[in-house]
């Protein structure tokens, strides 16, 4: 396993890796989704979900830090034995593929309804998948560099939304506290799907150069940055649309930008969408990378590059099947539900096992 861990990434790059993985498809729909549950107080729900994610992050790091020299897939073998670990690892592999397929489907839906209604589905999907395959074939430090590079585009994603404030009605955010705690939690649940991506730390922790404390600090910055972007986007949308209107608009962030025009840029929403495509691609890349990392454990190291190609073909092929909006929504909800198992359930059980077995990690494994 040694060569695998050679390509180290710096602790600072972890910030961009997490942020770029988290921010993706969901930023467009999040305001409407949380509004459906918590109305104009949805932004509080996002903060609640953020607190939850922060706890999970600390839990993850305390788990993977015990196995600093192992990837997640080899760690499970040590913790729960070979037969069980095969099942767990394989289900993570399927989970990553499911998420990539979901990203691809949702991406196509948005592009088809906003930008290219006539262009065939496979072209739009093949374009983004080929870009993802092209990069994911490279090593993690190359991917990290790319994410760092494209992160400057986030400024544009945030900046463009400021135009919404020219027609903002601050009273739309009041009154506060008009719903019960259950509604806040439902909103938090709805926003959790947008947060997905922080679980990346479970899988790339051994690649990171840096002390545990520093990694914890920087990855926390990353998730709070993402939450900041989400809260900002949601508040902007809540201020711009009236409450009865926002429920009609599935993509409030994009829709809002359609209302503005300037002599230089006629359609701000189209600018936004082209920048947003990159954020979506990076999320897709991360999950494709994680899936290919699994194949590295199953097959030999050298096969990862070609595995990426076939995995790309596979997700493209499956994603082509989803046609109706209902099927996509059902699929999306399904992924939202199963993600709890993968981001909360399994890591939590693993941590408990690790705690019970008390540091079996380093010395023991090397001796065996």
């Amino acid at each position, binding site marked *: 396993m040694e060569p695998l861990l050679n390509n180290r990434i710096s602790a600072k790059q972890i910030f961009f890796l997490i942020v770029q993985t988290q921010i993706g498809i969901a930023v467009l729909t999040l305001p409407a989704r949380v509004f459906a549950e918590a109305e104009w107080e949805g932004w509080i729900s996002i903060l609640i979900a953020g607190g939850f994610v922060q706890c999970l992050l600390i839990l993850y790091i305390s788990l993977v830090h015990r196995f600093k020299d192992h990837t997640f897939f080899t760690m499970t073998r040590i913790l729960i034995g070979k037969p069980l670990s095969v099942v767990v690892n394989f289900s993570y592999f399927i989970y990553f593929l499911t998420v990539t397929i979901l990203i691809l489907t949702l991406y196509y839906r948005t592009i088809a309804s906003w930008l290219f209604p*006539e262009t065939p589905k496979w072209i739009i999907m093949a374009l983004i998948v080929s870009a993802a395959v*092209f990069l994911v074939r490279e090593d993690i430090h190359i991917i990290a560099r790319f994410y760092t590079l494209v992160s400057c585009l986030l400024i544009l994603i945030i900046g463009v939304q400021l135009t919404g404030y020219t027609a903002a009605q601050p009273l739309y955010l*009041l009154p506060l506290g008009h719903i019960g705690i259950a509604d806040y939690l439902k909103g938090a649940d709805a926003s959790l799907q947008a947060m997905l991506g922080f679980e990346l730390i479970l899988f790339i922790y051994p690649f990171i150069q840096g002390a545990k404390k520093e990694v914890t600090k920087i990855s926390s910055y990353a998730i709070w940055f993402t939450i900041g972007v989400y809260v900002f986007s949601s508040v902007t949308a809540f201020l711009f649309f009236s409450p009865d209107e926002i429920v009609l608009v599935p993509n409030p962030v994009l829709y809002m930008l359609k209302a503005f025009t300037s002599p230089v840029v006629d359609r701000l929403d189209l600018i936004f969408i082209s920048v947003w495509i990159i954020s979506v691609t990076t999320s897709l890349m991360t999950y494709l990378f994680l899936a290919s990392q699994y194949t590295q454990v199953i097959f030999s190291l050298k096969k990862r590059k070609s595995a990426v190609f076939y995995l790309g073909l596979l997700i493209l092929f499956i994603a082509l099947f989803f046609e109706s909006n209902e099927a996509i929504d059902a699929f999306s909800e399904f992924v939202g539900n199963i993600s709890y198992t993968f981001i909360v359930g399994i890591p939590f059980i693993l941590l408990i096992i690790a705690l019970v077995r008390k540091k079996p990690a380093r010395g023991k494994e090397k001796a065996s």
Partner: protein
Amino acid sequence: MRAVLTALFICIIILNTGCWDSRQLRDITVVKSAGIDADEEDQLIEVTFASPIPEKYRTTERAQIVSALGHTPRHARDNLEAEVSEALDLGKLRVLMIGKELASEDLYPPLDIVYRDPRSALAAQIVIAEDQAKDIIDLQLEDRPRTSELIAELIKAAEEKTMLPITNIQLICPPLFDRGQDAMVPYMTLEEGNPHLKGVALFNDRQMTGSLSVKETTMLLLMMDKLQQTASLTEKVHSGRENELENYVTIEVEEVHRNLDVTINKATGQIEVPLKIDLFVNVIEYPLDDLDNEEKLNELSSLLSRNFTEKFQKVTEKLQDSNSDILGIGRRIHAYHYPYWKEIDWKEVYSEVDFQVDVTVDIVRHGILF
């Protein structure tokens, strides 16, 4: 592997030179202004589209104007495709005009087509026509720019002078759907063959229920604290002068301080809205030339304060007559008195709100003359 990927990339690039979603200018008719009217007799909708004719095909007309009937605006538009040689493209629309009759029923249904289409120009101006929208869209004035440009520019200039609220198709949508606030839309008519700005159409929910003149709109916008670059008001302050011109003063508002409060009298259930407006004005026309000392200045400002208080109050009454809550009082009750909001039906209560307008005029300048 590399060869396969390269081949794939080249293929994709070649295939993507814009086969499916490209829209060549030569294949489309760019619609710059559109009108939608109700056709009473047949329960149909009539749409009218005006699009500029490219210079090289130009005969005597500068614009091509077509109209057709249908059950919905989209249906009518599809019917039109049989009449024009190219596909109609509404992506560059500048003005959308709705007939009053249609707006009095419900403004949203005819607009659904614009809100739903990803290509539509939500930043286009929306206007209510006093009579038929078609009559205004149909205009081909020889001494003016194209009608679509003319109307769009007219509205834009009026917005800057606080004669009209800043609106477009999207910006009227939040108040249109807001239970605690209502929308207003520029209102136009045809006067001696020219498009003429009448003020704003007032809406109650999604129905047009009344209108304000341009001067009343300015006053309303001042009450909403929405002063743009300038706002001028002409007011009769004297009545005894022989020369009629000397009875009037024109002021330009430089600054507004507004204080709006919503209180609910627990005992009577009466909603009171004290609305205090301080106007800092510049006298830009006063033929009487009589502002050489402070006493006279004060006299004029208190005269103006009294007159404006009365007139602003009248505007609020007019809003209540149309049951149109443009000031967003309901929104404030929703935000600050939520339990009370849930008890009441705002549309029932609104007409009984007690507006207590108090305007103070402060003359800060009077040009380069006394």
